[in-house]
């Protein structure tokens, strides 16, 4: 990766984390809602990633693992 991109990623991370406030467990009712999850419908996400993997050059990057297939 280029130096510019690395610097940009560091700046983005610092910007995002600088806005953090301490959130107590009893304040996390909203964060616990199902619609706030990283993957509200895991099966739909699995199928979607599989299709994009088969039809596009880029794949992965969200921390999940899987195998290849003859589709790509």
């Amino acid at each position, binding site marked *: 990766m280029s130096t510019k991109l690395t610097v940009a990623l560091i700046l983005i991370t610092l910007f995002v984390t600088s806005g953090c406030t301490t*959130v107590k467990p009893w304040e996390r009712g909203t964060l616990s809602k199902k619609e*706030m999850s*990283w993957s509200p419908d895991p099966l739909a996400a699995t199928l979607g990633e599989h299709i994009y993997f088969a039809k596009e050059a880029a794949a992965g990057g969200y921390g999940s*693992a899987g195998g290849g297939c003859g589709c790509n």
Partner: protein
Amino acid sequence: MSYNKKQNISPTLAALYSAAFALPAYNKTVEAAGAPDSEPSISARISKYDEDRLSSSNFSGLGDQKRYDIEVGQVSVVYPINDTVQLTVDSAYEKMSGASPWFVQPDAEGSPVQVMSGATIDDERFDASAKLDIYKGKYTISPSVGFSTEKDYQAIFGGVSVARELDNKSTTLRGGISASFDEVKPTSDVVNDPNRIDSDDKENVSAFVGIGQVINKNTVVQSTFTIGHLSGFLSDPYKLVFNSAVPGLRDNRPDDRTQYIWSAQLRRWSETLSAALHADYRFYYDDWNIRSHTLDVGFLKHTDSGWSFEYSMRYYSQTQAEFYEPFYQAARSDGYYSSDYRLSPYGALSFRVKLAETINNWTVGVSAERYISDKSYSLQSVDVENPGLVDFTLFTFGVDYSFK
């Protein structure tokens, strides 16, 4: 409860809320969940994937314009074994038919047109995987294994990831490794080609690190960096390339590929809309010189009456592999050739909607996606569009049941 009253919460009430947060339903938004689900659940999906017929303006006249149709069935079972271990088993079955892009050639005006396979391809694929989530205090350890099998391809894969909670679950650190070992065994169903390989292998290993952070009571973010390395037979055994200088060439790609991926995800609750806003971004780069940007944004709303509605849009753009050409007019010194549309420069847009209703232990839903790819959607100017770019529609019907 009003959030601005938190300063006056009694220790007892605070302890109760802390206990409530420890319940599984409260933890599903955080990657290191902290505890298994309280009850088993099963989910099933039936999907119909239809690629658009190849347009006549992009068709060479050779082969069949009817592209892939795939019927997909998926089942997932989540089973909490005890207080600290949860098992998830996923399986999928696909039945596919249709013609596939074979190679690209110039027409009378020199514009690229697609030659399709001349026979209908019929194949089936089955995959299954199992994952354990083992909760050990602030750690969640998740080993997984799986396999995928079809007529001309076998894969076994596995991995392990670890999540560590910090700062009273405000921060989650994650890391993991995975590997896949694949065998390619081309069939003669499409075209009987004596020069095609009989079988070959490829391997894929990857590792990732990530961090999740609660920003405030309505916002959480996550960022992941992944590095992956593929090696072995990475070409498409069914595809040829057109080269006016060197006839009879096959798709031939380097036998190594290193991938670098950075992703960032945001979930934000809108008090105004009483809905969740999702934004996922991914930057991808590999040493075939492909760069891509993916942005996925969504709106998810659940009502008190049990209805849920989702709308999302995805934008994707990629540059071409350094050895890609629609067709060739000279020999390449490195010997690498591919006219695969998946290695060409283009952009794509997709739109998704989902509607579901939950009644007691059951959730029933339907969803649809429309995907369109075009050179004009690319972030960079594209001179010549690959004629094999795909557009598709996906319909899904799903049922979830929780054994409450």
